[in-house]
């Protein structure tokens, strides 16, 4: 009952967005019924398509978890994109740079190095906030640009495949690949495991309790002896770690190398997904699958129903709009005391 009630807003938002999308499709001269059946067919009918949907959902889950974790600590991490990018690049470098290692060592090593790169990139705005009071929204946005340009430079000058006309890193060793079992990518299972792990960390450990306390009331947390600076830095580092895993899986399990431009937008979709999931890590999984299904079926929608692929982007944007509106409205007016508001208490306020 309680779960149903908290899922109500996102479900209504999705339904409203699909209805508004139907109207758009109708206006653009296609049939909404055909379009939506193509959407379903293109993403869920048949193991191969279902596998593709899960593959596309994987970085979205990690990006969603990254943003959701930061929200739990009262921080708004818009830097998921940059953290993911660094994860993808470093995992790619580790994936081709180390040779002769067995899979059981090489793959996890590349994955973790990518995650560590994301964590380091995420920790920077955390340190800036804790020590200098710089707002994380500003610093993470700026660091996204820095990350994109730095990754391109590293990829061009340091780790570029010799003789390749394209700017990209060499293909990774087979021992660094994340395999796919049948049609189910292992990377997806890793992401699901992280979702449950994050839930456990937040709900069951003392550290998670500290993160949630700082997120909900930093003043009371510091009065209770919790070092809010330490928590802010760690929250951002963990958020970056999660985004970094997302980038690493993309490199090691899907693309096989790092290539600038191939991970564009994944980190930003994380914001939509975290809000749709109302920052609940378990709910991030279906939210990411939903968004991924739209990406996965875009070509079939175009082929079968003549719907422009941009329409799916519009529907995604509408979902975010409808999800965010009630939260933002309620947050602004604080009208209904006693009802959980998904954000941490203090983002945007300092």
């Amino acid at each position, binding site marked *: 009952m309680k779960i149903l009630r908290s899922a109500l807003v996102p479900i209504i938002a999705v339904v409203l967005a699909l209805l508004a999308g139907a109207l758009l499709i109708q206006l653009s001269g296609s049939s909404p019924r055909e379009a939506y059946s193509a959407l379903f067919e293109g993403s869920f009918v048949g193991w191969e398509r279902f596998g593709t949907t899960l593959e596309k959902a994987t970085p979205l889950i990690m990006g969603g978890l990254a943003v959701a974790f930061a929200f739990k600590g009262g921080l708004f991490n818009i830097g998921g994109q940059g953290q993911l990018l660094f994860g993808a690049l470093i995992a790619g470098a580790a994936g081709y740079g180390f040779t002769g290692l067995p899979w059981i060592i090489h793959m996890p090593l590349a994955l973790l190095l990518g995650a560590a790169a994301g964590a380091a990139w995420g920790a920077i705005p955390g340190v800036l906030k804790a020590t200098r009071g710089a707002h994380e929204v500003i610093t993470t946005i700026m660091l996204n640009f820095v990350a994109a340009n730095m990754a391109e430079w590293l990829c061009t000058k340091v780790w570029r495949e010799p003789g390749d006309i394209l700017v990209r890193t060499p293909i990774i060793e087979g021992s660094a690949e994340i395999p796919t079992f049948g049609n189910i990518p292992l990377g997806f299972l890793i992401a699901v495991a992280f979702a449950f792990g994050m839930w456990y960390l937040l709900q069951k450990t003392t550290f998670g309790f500290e993160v949630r306390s700082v997120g909900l009331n930093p003043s009371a947390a*510091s*009065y209770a*002896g919790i070092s809010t600076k330490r928590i802010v830095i760690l929250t951002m580092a963990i958020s970056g770690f999660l985004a970094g895993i997302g980038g690493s899986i993309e490199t090691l399990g899907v693309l096989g190398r790092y290539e600038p431009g191939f991970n564009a937008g994944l980190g930003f979709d994380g914001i939509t997904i975290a809000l749709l999931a109302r920052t609940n890590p378990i709910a991030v999984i279906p939210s990411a699958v939903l968004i991924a299904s739209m990406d996965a079926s875009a070509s079939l929608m175009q082929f079968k129903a003549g719907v422009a692929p941009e329409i799916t982007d519009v529907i995604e944007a509408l979902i975010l709009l409808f999800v965010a509106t009630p939260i933002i409205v309620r947050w602004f007016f604080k009208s209904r005391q006693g009802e959980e508001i998904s954000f941490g208490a203090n983002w945007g306020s300092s």
Partner: protein
Amino acid sequence: MNNQQAPLALEAVGICKSFGPLVANDEVNLQVEKGQIHALLGENGAGKSTLVNILFGLYKADEGEVRVAGEKVEMNSPHDAIEHKIGMVHQHFQLVPVLTVTENIVLGDEPTKKGGVLDFEKAAQEVEELGKRYGLEVDPRAVVEDLPIGYQQRVEILRSLYRQADVLILDEPTAVLTPQETDHLLEVLRSLTAEGVSIIFITHKLREVLAIADKVTVMRRGEVVGVTDPKETNEEGLAEMMVGRSVVLRIAKSEATPGNTVLSIKELNVLDDRNQSALKDFSLDVKEGEIFGIAGVEGNGQRELVEAITGLRPLVSGSILMGEKEMSGCSAREISEEGISHIPENREKHGLVGPHSVADNLVLNRYFHSPFAARGIRQTAAINEEASHLVEKFDVRTASIHNPARTLSGGNKQKVIAARELSHDSSLLLAAQPTRGIDVGSIEFIHQQLVNARDAGVAVLLVSAELDEILSLSDRVGVIYQGKLVAIAPTDEFTRIQIGQLMTSGNS
């Protein structure tokens, strides 16, 4: 239509108002005569604010009617109320800090010269005259944010008078005032009634009701439980009406038996948030088994003192000893572990994590200790067991220990904090404004807990702006003024008047 001699200035008849399942006002009647000071008395959540918000047009009543001078009127907005010459001074002032006194007063009703040009000069003169006439002098050209709280309140009152209010509603006006300012306000109110203004005075301070009110209406749980003449009752009688049972207003306590010095502060210098000196060479000793009360007008360094002791604010110089151990430079966690309990002055902001459950809040300072955690994993069963035990022992009224703490009433929130702080083994208890804004029944309970802690040998440092609280609980009193301790003595060597003078001027 009414059989009283004086005509009724304002009347509420059969007012009902619900917020969801909560009935805030149930068949409430209020009759305010012309030139009368009518006190509205009740605990927090009794429905006083709801009632006056209906009278001022901020809420719409579900049932019942409001009559002004015998005529039924529709109150749909504060604009209607102002039309009917009703003015209200809210507990939290509704002033624009960066505007001048005059600009604030005329806001919404600006005087204009020909061609729509604002005429502030004329308005400023009017404000000045009004101020002189009622003893509410304030510089009409001063910027509001530069004025002390007491003067800001004058601006609020002048604003209503400028609009020729016949009825003035004051929501807890004395909560922010010093004893002297309170006395002055009461005089002003008297002079207003002499001019025929009627006043509705919301308070939970019984002394003020007895001192000034002509009539008192007592509310409890949304209903009027009595209308009485203050001359025919006393503090105990009013308290009993408010709470519904007899209450002990003054906790009986035995002579203190102070022991060793627990807290020793020497030559402490601390800055405030704006990097101005907040404490100047502040020295103080608190011994085990005594309650040391710090009296003072708020903003004289009390908050900085408490934060310095608890490690939340860095020291510029000086030392803080707990027993023999130097605490300066230690983290808040280390200091708390050394045996300091702290009831913070702002319970919503500093004392509780509102969305967390009552149980989580009850272990907020010990969640990492055994048995509440083992190797970094929280032990829910142990937390719940402790929470159930504390909820029962401290009589916290909550439907479940799993409910969010923010859903509790103010008094129950304070009980949660007291339960948490008093149940952990400590040698020093810091209690800052421990009974602010909570009901009489909870005040009695908290006071008893402080005395019990003292009798158990704890050193208690009580910081309060309520002089009555300081006088009735403390064994020794220190008066703080502009960051300095200007006087220390056993409580019975001070009179109320002396402390009041020390609080406001630094000398007696």
